[in-house]
């Protein structure tokens, strides 16, 4: 079968890193990602719980781009296995006739670990303690494991526990947004209630989102859904860079959208805060960092309220950060990775409710991977939001 595959070729990772530093997205042509003929992955055990899937659409995520461009943290080395076929935002045809999206986390259930770890027992599969063990090679998710294949190949395998059947009426373009939408639902669920509003409803105060790429926008939608479903009160402010992001954030329910440079001033006004130098004395109860850089985290600490929380949704790497304000103002920085199984059911509703398939701006056949990666890496400035590979028959 044909697939895009990443092999452990250090020279190619280095070349991709250097090229991407000069021109984001251009690293794909020289990097570790290659379009190759490979043997289709086979089910690791024959217990009747594994299925063969034929991906239809598979999205390109920020974490994929980091890996392809050699920018991902070395933290991942022991929890991925080479060579692997990327792609974890997957809508696929299952061998039993269902059309499914994949919950890519390779938790205890998929690895044949019994009894499962404490986290998996509690349903917190995103915190699985056994992601490098069991009968699968290491891999935190499908798309990073050499045994399962991934969404950027014509065929892959997945455990029954990973499959979520989607409504027959739902277009693939909607379905491919379910996985990232589940991430957003998980992030939105971490936004704590700060008190009661004047109207007597739960109030999350001011929530600031830094970054309005796919995750940022979907988090806006997920918070808006909480506002609609739970009556949660909140002031939702979003820092967005590009016009299509501004428009989408407003459309999804953000109360204020502005360039990142204006965020601190806007939060100051919204929260009736004072300021000491660049540091707000008050600030937003929750800041959701969908970028994950030193600059975005520094900004998050600048605008988060004392006792508030910074949720890290964007995948970080090594950052340089002055934590004095965190210490002094008793701020918590909290990681926010992936989802639990139930988030996918909510994600289906979210995708349908907000018509999130419209954010799939462009699809490419895997043969045009360099072009696709370039487009995804420059999505903002090229007016795009989500880029995906199209593996349906015509391609």
């Amino acid at each position: 079968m044909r697939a895009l595959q990443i092999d452990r070729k250090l020279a190619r990772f280095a070349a991709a890193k250097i090229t991407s530093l000069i021109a984001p997205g251009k690293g794909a042509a020289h990097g570790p990602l290659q379009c190759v003929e490979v043997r289709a992955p086979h089910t690791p055990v024959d217990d009747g719980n594994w299925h063969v899937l034929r991906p239809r659409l598979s999205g390109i995520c920020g974490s994929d781009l980091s890996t392809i461009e050699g920018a991902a943290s070395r933290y991942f080395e022991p929890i991925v296995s080479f060579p692997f076929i990327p792609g974890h935002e997957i809508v696929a045809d299952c061998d039993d006739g269902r059309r499914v999206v994949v919950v890519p986390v390779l938790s205890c259930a998929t690895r044949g670990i019994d009894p499962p770890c404490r986290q998996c027992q509690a349903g917190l599969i995103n915190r699985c303690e056994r992601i490098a063990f069991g009968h699968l090679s290491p891999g935190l998710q499908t798309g990073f494991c050499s045994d399962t294949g991934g969404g950027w190949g014509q065929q892959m395998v997945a455990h029954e526990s990973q499959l979520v059947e989607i409504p027959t009426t739902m277009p693939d373009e909607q379905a491919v947004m379910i996985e990232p939408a589940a991430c957003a639902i998980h992030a939105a669920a971490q936004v704590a209630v700060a008190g009661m509003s004047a109207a007597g409803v739960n109030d999350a105060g001011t929530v600031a989102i830094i970054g309005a790429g796919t995750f940022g926008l979907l988090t806006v939608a997920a918070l808006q859904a909480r506002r609609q479903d739970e009556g949660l009160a909140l002031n939702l402010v979003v820092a967005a860079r590009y016009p299509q992001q501004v428009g989408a954030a407003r459309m999804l329910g953000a109360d204020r959208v502005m360039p990142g440079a204006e965020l601190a001033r806007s939060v100051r006004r919204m929260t009736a805060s004072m300021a000491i130098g660049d540091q707000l004395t008050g600030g937003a109860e929750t800041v959701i960092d969908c970028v994950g850089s030193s600059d975005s985290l520094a900004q998050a600490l600048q605008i988060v309220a004392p006792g508030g929380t910074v949720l890290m949704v964007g995948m970080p790497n090594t950052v340089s950060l002055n934590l004095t304000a965190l210490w002094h103002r008793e701020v918590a920085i909290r990681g926010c990775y992936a989802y639990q199984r139930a988030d996918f059911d909510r994600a289906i509703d979210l995708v349908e409710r907000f018509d999130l398939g419209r954010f799939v701006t462009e699809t490419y056949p895997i043969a045009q991977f360099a072009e696709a990666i370039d487009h995804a890496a420059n999505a903002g400035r090229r007016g795009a939001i989500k880029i995906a590979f199209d593996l349906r028959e015509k391609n």
Partner: protein
Amino acid sequence: MPRPGFVLDVDRSTPPTMFWRGEGFSLEKLPPDRSRIIYPAEPLPALDDIDGAIRHALLNPIDSDPLPALLFPGMKLTIAFDDVSLPLPKMRRPDIRQRVIEAVLDLAAEAGVDDVHIIAALALHRRMHEFELRHAVGDRVYDAFAPRGLLYQHDAEDPDGLAFLGATPEGEEVEINKRAADSDLLVYVNINLVAMDGGWKSTATGLASYRSLRHHHNPTTMQASHSFMDQHRSELHKSNWRMGKIMRDHGPRVFQIETTLNTDTFPKNFEFLSKREWEWTARDRAGFLATKKSLDRTPVKLARKIFHSIEAPHQMTSIQCGEVEAVHKITTEHVYAQQLVEVQGQTDILTMGIPYISPYNVHSILNPILVMCMGLGYYFNMYRGKPLVRLGGVVIMTHPTLPDFHPVHHPSYIDFYEQVLSETTDPHVMSAKYEKSFAEDEWYKHLYRTSYAYHGVHPFYMWYWGSHGLQHVARTIIVGGNTKAVRRLGFTPASTMEDAFEIASDVVGRNATVTHLHTPPLMVADVK
């Protein structure tokens, strides 16, 4: 004998006209046979013996006892004076305020008055820096009063420093500086640069609080002022006068001192700025070219510094003291004598070069909101009778309109630009939706009271100032402005004057009449 103002009809032989562009200039050709240029009058002669005139006025006031008769030992005397927003540019030392305050203090000392406070009446403007206070009142007064806390600046947000005097029948609350209100005599020292300065506006605005100011600094009042320079048709003026009645009935006794200046605006090396182009000598042309070329190469920060260091040679042409309204009537005549230029009929397109300075950016930056205020607030309102531009006409300004803000002086302007103008340019909408939250923002209050920031509500007032202009013209075009900033203001950017006329033709046709307001120096068009 100085020549009066003049209206020049532009023909093919008319040389290009100078337009201000912030900290620079350009020469522009206006369309011949349908354009005219309004030039201000030449500066009236200054009074020969200024100190003598001051003393004479204090001893011979209008509808009032002489000042010495109002002074007595044990009394509370407060002297308030106009802040850094006047005059423009700042005048060469000694400032007229210094001369007047010294004269008043001499009389107070002779009368044995020892409880004297001197207050900068800055309303919601920024506090003055020490060097600005010294420039205004002189070192002698500053050193004698400031160190003892007897020379200070009005604080419109000091809950213990304000006194409520009552409300007008229209419900306008009058709340002014407590020390001034509690005084046996309030002497107010004005510089009446334009016709709207002075009168009851001095006390009812300069010493007032937001609670009081909001009754006339609002879109409704501003849009009903036709114009600010015409007392009989200015709702702003009427509101201040209604408040004045409350002041008269329930406030301190006021001894009003009003002074007028001539329009000798620029020093010798910038003389060409005040001249009519066809009268430029070879030296003027060389001066213009040299200045323009060097400014074009000068970083904008340095250029600002150079321009704000200009001290104008303008001098006093009149001083009158006594009862507020009687004094102001005469003052207005003096202002008109210097500034009125008779103009026949309105125009389709009004052009104006916006200079580097306004009352609200002394030693600072003319940010985009102040560009709007200068164009549609001040220059548009420089008329008596009818607006220079017809209803549905076009205003063309020239200014770089950079989205630059002085972070210390104008913090709320930045937020206004980012958060309010990005949503609406409608004065009524922004007033209803945002004004209160800006006015009551504790951070802005803190910066206003302790730093050098304009009050949080001030950018709204600047926008309201232009609201009559906004309402009146169909389109405003800024030539040479930063495209994004110009659009944020709701205006149309144009690269060149030719482009601007082309754009304007969509609104007013291809044979539209053009009038250029050749100012500064200041003038008021008396439109017949």
